[in-house]
């Protein structure tokens, strides 16, 4: 076994255990174990398990960016100092100073690439697990040869073989496969595009929008769908289901984050404040935010946007 295979072995073992476990569960519920639907549901359940296991990472991230807001005025001061200086040396000096401030505060608004690094081997592992099963060969753990053969033979609604990719579907001119793959790709690209658009238009602060990274990100918003189209061509339908459910999961998670705990200072945060104020008005309460913490957050944002003196008290008094 090569080094890469050794690294992937435990991941594949866990993936197979979860996949087969859910497959067994659906069979126990009385569903036909050989049907494509059960396999698709097993894959979808696997996504739910993987992504739910990652929620602590996301929550940790959100909390730490909230905490980073405490030093926002300091960061703003540094950004003002370098205002208008667009050369790379000033940018670098500015970034260094900002990072020092975050470090001193013991917090950081950035996510690090760990969430992405965790997901990549999982997806790769699943591709390998499904590819092995497609050959009718037993996997490294729970995926026995019998199950692998069953998976290879399974079709969704007795029309769409799960092991085919769009490439194979086109070469064999299998219409159900082509239609399923194409519509899944379109849906996937749509979900991805919508998620990115939501994050970028609603959940970013004015400072974030000024950075050169933001422009690049905007550009990428239109490039990612192309990447997805190319990969959809190669991967079998079963893997595409994993991707599709994962994208939908991200979309729902992002919408919840944007609505419930938006990035302070972003458009979504202002919308949420307005909504809360309206709600309180409807209930006949003064337009004060109920929690002390919310109130403080509000003051800090006002501070960094318009440089107003720090005032405590309800907005209606200002």
């Amino acid at each position, binding site marked *: 076994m090569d080094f890469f295979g050794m690294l992937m072995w435990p991941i594949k073992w866990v993936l197979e255990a979860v996949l087969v476990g859910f497959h067994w569960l659906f069979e126990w519920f009385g569903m036909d174990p050989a049907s494509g639907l059960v396999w698709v549901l097993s894959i979808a359940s696997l996504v739910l398990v993987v992504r739910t296991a990652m929620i602590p*990472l996301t929550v*940790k*991230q959100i909390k*730490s960016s909230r905490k980073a807001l405490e030093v926002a005025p300091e960061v703003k001061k540094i950004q003002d100092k370098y205002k208008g200086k667009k050369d790379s040396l000033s940018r670098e000096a500015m*970034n*260094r100073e*900002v*990072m*020092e401030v*975050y*470090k001193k505060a*013991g*917090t*950081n608004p*950035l*996510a*690090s*690439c*760990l969430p*992405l*690094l965790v997901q990549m081997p999982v997806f790769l592992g699943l591709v390998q697990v499904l590819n092995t099963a497609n050959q009718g060969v037993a996997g490294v753990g729970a995926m026995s040869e019998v199950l692998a053969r069953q998976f290879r033979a399974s079709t969704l609604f007795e029309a769409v073989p799960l092991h085919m990719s769009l490439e194979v579907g086109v070469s064999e001119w299998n219409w159900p496969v082509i239609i399923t793959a194409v519509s899944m790709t379109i849906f996937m690209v749509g979900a991805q595009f919508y998620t990115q658009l939501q994050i970028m238009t609603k959940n970013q602060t004015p400072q974030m929008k000024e*950075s050169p*990274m*933001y422009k*690049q*990100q905007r*550009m*990428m918003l239109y*490039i*990612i769908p192309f990447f997805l189209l190319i990969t959809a061509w190669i991967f079998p339908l079963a893997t595409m289901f994993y991707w599709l459910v994962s994208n939908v999961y991200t979309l729902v998670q992002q919408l919840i984050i944007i609505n419930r705990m938006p990035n302070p200072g972003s458009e979504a945060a202002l919308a949420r404040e307005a909504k809360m104020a309206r709600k309180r008005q409807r209930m006949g309460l003064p337009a004060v935010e109920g929690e002390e913490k919310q109130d403080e957050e509000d003051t800090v944002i006002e501070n960094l946007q318009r440089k107003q003196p720090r005032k405590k008290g309800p907005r209606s008094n200002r």
Partner: protein
Amino acid sequence: MRTVLLLPRNACVAVLLVYRKLISPIYGDVCRYYPSCSRYTLEAIQQWGVIRGVGLGAWRILRCNPWSAGGVDDIPERSHLYRITTRGFVAAEERN
């Protein structure tokens, strides 16, 4: 001769430059450190060579997680520095 010896690290530099240009912008500014992990690795490979550079870079990526404090973190100092071309490749002559 020295140019040939510098080939492996320049090959790695080329890969990293492509990554930084095309793939890195997809998920945007996420690194908790400054310089970012990819630039840190790039600089480490430029100055310390492929083996130690990749080692330093891998260690940095492991350190960069939601539980780390982040902050400014430069590559270890080296007494003699290689001259870097404007594109980022390592030139054979040394810089003082």
